């Protein structure tokens, strides 16, 4: 045996995984699952990564692709061997495509659970200046992550902190305080970013100084900011807002505080004294669990939510969602083009078949079975995987 040093070299980053992929031992989703497993920080992330590494997602996607390929084969047969295969074979695939389209749409409509688990749930803390937002952040982080001072407007930009909230990855953003009467361009920009963070977040925590009043107006305004947010499609806006009535130590005990406003729960706290924090944290955790595990069912569509739990593999990356959306679009065009009362308005077979080809290609791009060179480089350079 040659043990000559010139024939031996250390493997490069991710080289073994790359070889496993190139030799068909792993598909791209498994490779990504492995990368996710290595970088997993929370229990839920590990669980999800393991399932993806185990091929759950690949099996699902390859099942879909096999179905499209089978439909495609029928369509191609009609086109290339029209003498032997008549148009009925083409019509016969329409209901199959329809069924598949329904299934795929169902998966796309998953409330971004997988992506949230993988990337961390985004929680934005907003509110008026000096309400105690940074104090809440520090309390959640259990360390002084943000500078706190009695001065209004201490936080000017968005401060992000990654937390493991009882097994859930959470990215908490502390934001600049919102107020009307300022002309400081830096503060105005900070407020713009705060609003953006609130509308992008999975959950928005409104911190309000209970001693100041005007809480209902503040809640109203936050609801407005989140209106139309994609994150609220399934659950409704109110389910994703938590209100914190802070500084209760400054108001008289006799003050009767509300526990909800317009279905939005209100937690009374005195953050400087750690009062009420554990109730708030528990609620946040529960809210996130429901969102991430799909269990229970917060929204009106309870049936779908309970069905979506557990065994079904979820979309874990924007890349998956991107390709899956394109595939769904292609199949939708196919369906629109080949159904209806007037066959003279149908898409010609060559164009309709092209949509099936696109759908198969897009799904193939997720698993990396076809047309992957461009995504390969990204995947293998992004991660240090699998020596």
């Amino acid at each position, binding site marked *: 045996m040659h043990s000559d040093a010139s024939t031996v070299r250390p493997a490069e980053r991710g080289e073994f995984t790359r070889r496993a992929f190139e030799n068909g031992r792993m598909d791209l989703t498994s490779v990504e699952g492995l990368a996710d497993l290595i970088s997993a920080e929370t229990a839920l992330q590990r669980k999800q990564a393991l399932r993806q590494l185990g091929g759950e997602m690949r099996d699902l996607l390859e099942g879909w692709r096999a179905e499209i390929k089978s439909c495609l084969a029928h369509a191609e047969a009609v086109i290339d061997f*029209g003498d032997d295969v008549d148009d009925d074979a083409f019509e016969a695939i329409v209901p199959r495509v329809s069924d598949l389209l329904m299934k795929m749409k169902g998966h796309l409509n998953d409330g971004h659970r997988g992506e949230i688990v993988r990337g961390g749930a985004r929680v934005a803390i907003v509110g008026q200046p000096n309400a105690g937002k940074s104090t809440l952040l520090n309390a959640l982080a259990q360390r002084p992550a943000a500078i706190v001072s009695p001065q209004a407007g201490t936080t000017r930009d968005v401060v992000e902190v990654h937390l493991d909230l009882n097994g859930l990855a959470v990215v908490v953003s502390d934001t600049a305080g919102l107020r009307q009467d300022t002309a400081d361009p830096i503060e105005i920009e900070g407020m713009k970013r705060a609003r953006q963070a609130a509308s992008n977040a999975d959950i928005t925590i409104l911190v309000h100084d209970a001693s100041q009043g005007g809480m209902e107006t503040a809640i109203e305004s936050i609801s407005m900011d989140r209106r139309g947010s994609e994150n609220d499609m399934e659950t409704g806006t109110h389910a994703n807002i938590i209100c914190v009535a802070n500084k209760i130590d400054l108001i008289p005990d006799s003050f009767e505080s509300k526990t909800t406003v317009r279905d939005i729960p209100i937690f009374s706290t005195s953050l400087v004294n750690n009062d009420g924090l554990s109730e708030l944290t528990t609620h946040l955790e529960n809210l996130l669990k429901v969102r991430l595990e799909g269990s229970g069912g917060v929204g009106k569509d309870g049936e779908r939510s309970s069905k979506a739990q557990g065994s079904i593999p979820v979309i874990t990356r924007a890349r998956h969602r991107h390709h899956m959306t394109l595939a769904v679009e292609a199949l939708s065009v196919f369906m629109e083009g080949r159904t209806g009362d007037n066959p003279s308005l149908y898409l*010609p077979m060559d*164009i309709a078949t092209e949509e099936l080809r696109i759908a198969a290609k897009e799904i193939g791009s997720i698993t990396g079975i076809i047309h992957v060179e461009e995504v390969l480089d990204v995947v293998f350079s992004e991660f240090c995987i699998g020596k």
Partner: protein
Amino acid sequence: MRAHTTRAFSPLYDVVVIGGGHAGCEAAAAAARTGASVALLTHNIASIGAMSCNPSIGGIGKGHLVREIDALDGVMPRAADDAAIQFRTLNASRGIAVRGPRAQCDRNLYAKAVRHILRSSQHRSLTITEGSAEKFTLSDGRVTGVQLASSPKGIPADLRAGAVMFMGSKTEMGGRRGDISAVGIADALRLNGLKLGRMKTGTPPRIYADSINFEGIKEEPSDANPVPFSFLTEPSSMLVGRKLVSCFQTRTSIATHDIIREAMAAGLSPEYHSDNAPRYCPSLEAKVSRFGDRDGHVVWLEPEGLDSNLIYPAGISMSLPEQVQQRVINSIPGMKKGKIAIPGYAVEYDYVDPTELRPNLECHRLPGLFLAGQINGTTGYEEAAAQGVLAGINATMHVWDSHPDQHGALHGMSNFDCLTDGYLRLGRGDAYIGVLLDDLTRLGTAEPYRMLTSRAEFRISLRPDNADRRLTPIGREVGCVTRERWESYKKKQRIVEDARNVLRKTKASRVDFGRVGLERVFDGCKRRGNESMYLGDALLRSGVSLQAVEWVAHLEAELQYKPHIERQRVEVDKLRRDEGLKVSKEFDYRRVRGLSLEDFEKLSKEKPQSLGEAGRISGVTPAGILLLRAHVRRQLGKRKGKRKGKEEREVMQMKDEKLLWLGHV
């Protein structure tokens, strides 16, 4: 030997092509058009242009190839347009990108057309000669020529060439298994380590047409508006002086299948070493054993020519004993009394694993040798011809490349990506020819390779209608496209561009679209109110075609009838002016000479005040109005003439002189 080697530096021909089948003809012609001096070696000049199997060109996927061959100025498309006796566009309703132009051809006319084109001035550097190649001449591992069995007139037996193209091993009609020289060459290929394989193909029995009863079986007449293969063939000329025939469609019956099964069970099927028969064109035996449950398979009865009494029954190639074939034929509707003229048979042949070839069709192991056609494992005239064109161009570029001093290499100087490697490398995104070459040279083939549209990933872009746009500029750069075609191509592109601009820039409103029943082009559009849409965009909506857009028909009519429209416009303008011509109430219609009594009575009674009013009186004839008009104008002219008559007469005189003068030049 030394003397031979030195002579090799100035070979008699740039390119020698062995084999005169479809690949050989296209290769020799393409090389000649590209500028090479070419010798085409064939056993029998009379067999050039022979269609050894079915008498048709084109079809789905294959039609695409033929259009592409034409875009590179090849032989097959023009020959097929010339020799066609029935046209059909397959898949006409299934989408523009998958339409397959197909023509039934008269065998004799086709061969004649091919020979005519090969002898035309665009191929003047091509010499066709009878002879058979024995073996290759090798020098430093390169193929530098061929040794001939005997020396044809004016050609040395030791034929040196810059490049050699081998298109032999063609299975000929009559069941000859290749031929002696091809066997020798195949040995040469094997000796040089090329991987060879065996394939099998078959042909159906030919039937006497007058023994078939065509009554009661489905007739497939020629398309009313045939689409030519060649971009140079004027579609309107396609039917001029052309005799057309019909094809017929019948089916095998359950009785047919029983006969086949019985014969196969009795071991009457000949044995073959290879199972590599085409899946896409199976023998009747294969159809029956694979799809026994079907009650019948389509059989096309295709006439072999205008003066031929033979029918080619496509779909039932078989190799059973003749008596069995006779029973099979007689079990098919329409052929109860059908008589076999030539029985069907199957043949096996050698092919070179095409992964032995570079993408320019040159052998890796034998540089200087190019292979194209059936030898590469393909089936079909069109597939062979397509490879031939590419091999011809590439062999020529190979010769140029090895003598850049004489020719100037094309290396890296081209605007086209597909030419930057020093040979023409058509890719999968360029052409079906590119798909064909890529599939063959990269993946190889285990069964006779046939072109299908499903093989093309970019099917929507690689359409028969744009083959010229995709390939003719490349062909022009390579030099294989004649000036005539180039001019015609440019002219067409200008017309297309103009029309495209009209469609892009002409907007029509919802009301306009509604008038032609196309209101729904706005369905699903977000715009409201004063909606309008470019005609080009309306075409994106399903169910809209150019034929349905009224304005396109309008445009066509306007351009086509332009001279007549111009002429009529002048008359219409005149008429408009005349409408206002005044007629006195007291006008005496007796003064109008030639007015019919009926017109006279009506006009006298109604007393119109203008020529327009006169025209609207019911019953007054147009001739009457014209006469009245002439009279009124004459009166008007007389009055004006009194004022400036002299002046006008002088001007007129000068004009006439100028015209006379001009007329003499």
